């Protein structure tokens, strides 16, 4: 059943649907709550779900349920006085190690796509564990941006609106985060 069907059933009185929605989305809510409120994220998440319960009948389907939910989370955090307080510093270091290139900027050793490694089930599982670890190791706000865009599947504009960032900054942070994860996978295969 889709999120939108679940929230409609909840509004119609089926309270069990709330359990399913919380199960699906509590981690994403916590991620956005952490972005704004750090260690007070649980408080923001709780306020978010209460606001969803109270306002479920107002969900009009103009966006996906997930976007609506995470926008409520961002608004609740801001209403509670939390702001994205960290100074947004963009790391301008190379996304690929400089020693991979010649003085003229050409690759010294060409990258190798991961397809062959991913075809091996054991290696695929090991790579997935690396991706999970690498994502967790990203600093903020990069981790939240990559999580919302690449794990949760929101588009760049939605991520920018929820995190109160410009779309340009979202793209820069996405680039840094994806490049870091790619490097980790590659390094495990012998290149970096």
């Amino acid at each position, binding site marked *: 059943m889709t999120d939108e069907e679940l929230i409609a059933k909840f509004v119609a009185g089926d*309270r069990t649907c*709330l*359990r399913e929605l*919380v*199960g699906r989305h*509590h*981690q*994403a809510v*916590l*991620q956005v709550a952490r972005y704004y409120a750090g260690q007070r994220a649980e408080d923001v998440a*709780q306020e978010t*779900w*209460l606001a969803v*319960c*109270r306002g479920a009948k107002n969900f009009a389907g103009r966006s996906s349920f997930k976007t609506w939910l995470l926008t409520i989370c961002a608004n609740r955090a801001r209403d509670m006085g939390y702001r994205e307080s960290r100074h947004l510093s963009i790391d301008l270091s*190379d*996304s*690929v190690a*400089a020693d991979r*290139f010649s003085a*003229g*900027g*050409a*690759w010294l050793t*060409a*990258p*190798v*796509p*991961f*397809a062959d490694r*991913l075809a091996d089930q054991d290696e695929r599982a090991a*790579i*997935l564990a690396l*991706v*999970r670890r690498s*994502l967790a190791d990203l600093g903020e706000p990069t981790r939240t941006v*990559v*999580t919302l865009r*690449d*794990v949760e*599947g929101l588009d*760049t504009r939605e991520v920018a609106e929820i995190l109160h960032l410009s*779309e*340009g900054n979202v*793209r820069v942070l*996405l*680039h840094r985060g*994806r*490049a870091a*994860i*790619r490097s980790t*996978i*590659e390094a495990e295969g012998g290149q970096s």
Partner: protein
Amino acid sequence: MSLFTRDLACRQAVALISDYLENGLTGRERRRLERHLAGCGACTAYLEQMKETIALTGTVTVEDVGQEALDELVEVYLRFLDDEAAE
């Protein structure tokens, strides 16, 4: 090649790949990058790696909050709603 068209170096091209995948390049930047990719197997392989990285990241499931913890949370929300309705 036109005197007014500078080729991208690979190092510059890789810096544009993520924006390329996000449709965040201007038409001119996109054309320059695609021209470079058409003649560069190494950067095409890098583009493939980035697509694979994004697809892999999309399969990550963040660690579950325990089922019991979720049940407790939901119970709290529903009780709160009942209390509000009763007031």
